[in-house]
């Protein structure tokens, strides 16, 4: 399902928590919603899941509005940052409840995932650890086989192995069922290897929205050492958009045709050089810097 947020606003009294958001997420992709605490990510996720009604604008899935629309909601699962389970409920009881709610629920998948994660289905969920609850929430969400998953800080509380496993299952569902995922996080590195596209939210607005493949295809990091530092023509010739100089070593972000970069670099007789892909943080350092924002002010590790 294709998700489209068109001009959505959400206010809490006089405070605008989400301001004129336009966002489009293609079917079968993962979109990362990044931003510091209080940026408006969770509010936007709740608007996207139909919990809140947008004050203005709309949230549609394949052109169908989600608010108070069970037929759309049955294909969309929202996983809260703190998983919610009924008081005293076990995973089995929650599964029974989910089964009556979500039309694509798979008992087989539930059994497989419960066994895979090693969760005791008869134990009260509220007595489990934070990580176990998170795993239980993922088991329920994956077993419901939604077309869209909205994940609010999904990896909080999971150990690295579990994160990897969850990410793998997520990827499988995207590959096999063309599932669409929107995941919010305040952690850039967490989303590094996961997202096809990302948005950065700050003060209720989306400051930046881009496909990561586009960025990675047009930008790279160049670390280069010289006997003598080159002149300004080096920066303009290589189309360097951001650089740091330390002694005779320059670390820079280069925009443009990466295939021809090596040829251009060798013209300046470097002692040595290395061309590396950009990390998300570096992309944002550059992009946000261009927009006039300091990335460290927006995304806190």
């Amino acid at each position, binding site marked *: 399902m294709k998700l489209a947020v068109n001009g959505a606003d959400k206010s*809490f009294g006089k405070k605008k928590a989400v301001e004129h958001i336009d966002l489009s997420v293609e079917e079968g992709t993962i979109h990362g919603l990044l931003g510091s605490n209080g940026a408006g990510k969770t509010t936007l996720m709740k608007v996207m*899941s139909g919990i809140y009604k947008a004050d203005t604008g709309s949230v549609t899935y394949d052109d169908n509005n989600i608010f108070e629309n*069970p037929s759309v909601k049955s294909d969309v699962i929202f996983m809260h940052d703190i998983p919610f389970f009924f008081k005293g409920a076990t995973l089995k009881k929650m599964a*029974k409840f989910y089964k*009556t*709610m979500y*039309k694509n629920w798979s008992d087989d998948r539930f059994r497989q995932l419960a066994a895979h994660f090693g969760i005791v289905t008869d134990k009260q969920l509220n007595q489990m650890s934070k990580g176990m609850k998170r795993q239980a929430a993922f088991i329920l969400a994956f077993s419901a086989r939604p077309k869209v998953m909205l994940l609010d800080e999904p990896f909080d509380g999971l150990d690295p192995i579990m994160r990897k496993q969850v990410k793998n299952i997520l990827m499988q569902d995207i590959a096999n069922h063309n599932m669409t995922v929107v995941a919010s996080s305040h952690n850039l590195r967490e989303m590094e290897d996961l997202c096809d596209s990302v948005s950065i939210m700050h003060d209720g607005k989306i400051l930046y929205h881009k496909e990561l493949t586009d960025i990675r295809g047009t930008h790279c990091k160049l670390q280069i050492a010289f006997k003598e530092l080159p002149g300004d023509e080096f920066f303009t010739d290589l189309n360097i958009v951001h650089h740091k100089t330390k002694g005779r070593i320059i670390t820079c972000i280069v925009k443009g045709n990466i295939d021809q970069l090596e040829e251009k670099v060798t013209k300046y007789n470097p002692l040595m050089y290395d061309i590396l892909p950009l990390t998300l943080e570096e992309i944002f350092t550059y992009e946000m810097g261009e927009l006039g924002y300091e990335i460290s002010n927006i995304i806190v590790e």
Partner: protein
Amino acid sequence: MKSQTSLLNKGLFSHFSGTIFWLTVVFMAMNIIALPLSLWIVTYDRDLIPGYTMPDNLLFQMSAGQIIIGMIFAVFLAMFLLNYLNDEASSDFMHSLPIKRTAVLTHALMTGFAAITIPLLITAVILLLERIVFIPEIALMEIGKWLLYSIFVNCVIFLISVFAGFLVNGIFLHLQMILLALFLPLALWGLIYGAAAVLFDGISQSFIEHSEPVLNATFPYIAVTQLYSGLDVTLNLVWAIIAAVLLLLSFVLYRYRKNEYVTDSFNYQWLKSALVAVLSTGGMLAMGTAVSLLFIPLSVTISIVGFIIGAIVTYIIAEMLFQKNAKIDMNWKTFLLTLIVIGVFWAIFIPAWSNYTSSVPEASKVDSVYVSSDYEYYTNISIEEYFEDGFLYDNHPRTIQNAVNIHEAAVQEKSVPGNYSGEETAILNIKYKMTDGTVMSRSFSTLKADAPLFADVNNLKNSQYDINSDFLANLKQHPDMIDLILFSGMVNADKSFIDDYKENTDALMSYNPYIVNQTGQVEMSANYKNNYESGFSSIYNSAVLDRIHASDISVSDTLFLDQSSAMYVAEPEQADMADFFTDYHSLNIEELTEKYNLKALSEAEKEETLTAVNNGELAPEGNKLLLFSYPNYTATSEDYAADIDFSIIAIQ
């Protein structure tokens, strides 16, 4: 087929019913204890009681406890079913599910209705079995009526409670809203009435008389009282309509509910401000009235301080409760609104009650009047139900004009209650039945006891026998009447005695009005299925004397003459009769003896008098009066009026 495609969702039902399962079990258990078990215990040994007859509506009378338990259950039911709305996590989860809000509410309501109905049905089945095995007197129809009424009452309370749940977020706040919805009008009216009674003289003593609309707006009250007074179809229909409207409004409020405000205590800030303002006004009245009761004799200023402190304290407490925090945030809008409401309240309260207590009707608009300088024994409801038209009320134009004059004098002479002047005060009650069918009641308690108007009150009655105040002369042949109890419980009589008494009242009208009004009054009672009424009638009525002669008691027994230790005979002249009775109420026995030459009877004379009285030798047409002390009388030097220790009977 998966249930999410059907109209009702099994999972949601299962969730809601699981939430209230144990609560329902407790309700059912308490239901069984409160009704079938209690009924069995009450009627268990009825065969051992001779002449025991089971009241027709015993089931309804016994179900008061069960109805109250049911209402409390319905409140908790709504609170727990809607508890998912009170917490951000549960609210978000429930509203992220693929089910419409209206459907969620429908499921919650249906679960609630089932939880109300199923235990009551089980209780009804137990009652049916009980009827078959132990208590055949309970009619099948009664059980059916009880079941429907119980379901109705619980459902109305449940729907009121559900509606209240959409106004706030928080289970404790929800409970507060329910209590306010159910009892705020009554509590507020009670406080207004209480404050008015403390600050103004001339207000009716009977709170109930002025409170019918408010009591009718208090559903728990009318739900219980109908068990005794019988079901009021119109009133129940009105409440059914109110419940239906609240149900509809609940859906509307839920539809437009903003989940993002789940962390706010109130979904509508204006409601919080309005409630704080109203509660502050109520608290102001409560504390102000309490302080005024204690301090008005000393200082009006202290009373005013009491009102101000009451308002401030209640404002703070209301804000604490409504903000769910002892550390409250001051909201200037709420504060200003509270000040305005309090200001408007006093601006209406003082002139309205001043006008109320000072208003005197035009004689031409009065149909009949009842004036009394004694405490009120009857409510308008009991007068209408059990007595003939005209009981207590006199429709003679002269009496009406005199009553209006007395009322005007009382308005002029009244002062602030509690403003103790050191002089003895007396009570004056005036009730008018107006020509338009309304009733106007006023009670004064600050009038000086020796005020001339009280002499006028006595004169109102002394032109002839006060037949309007005679209990038996005005008693209806009510279908619920079981029997009559004469002479403070000494003799029982059936309903036919009422007719016997009424047939012999003409003679009473021909007797000396002072004597027949102020002597020979004996207590009579009527026993009803659900009620008990009592009053005074004349022993001079020949039917009464015949009844005594036919029984195994004597006239002296009925008057406790045989237990009298001191007797005097007085023979005032006809012209002095009014003064004599005025003095009887004000002078002590020694002063009365001296002034009217009372003759103290010797032991032999007492015996002789007793015999004569027991032979029926009473003479209300004459002027010979026997003053006899009440039982356990001992002569004291204290300055009591003679009427405290002595009664009077007219003898031959």
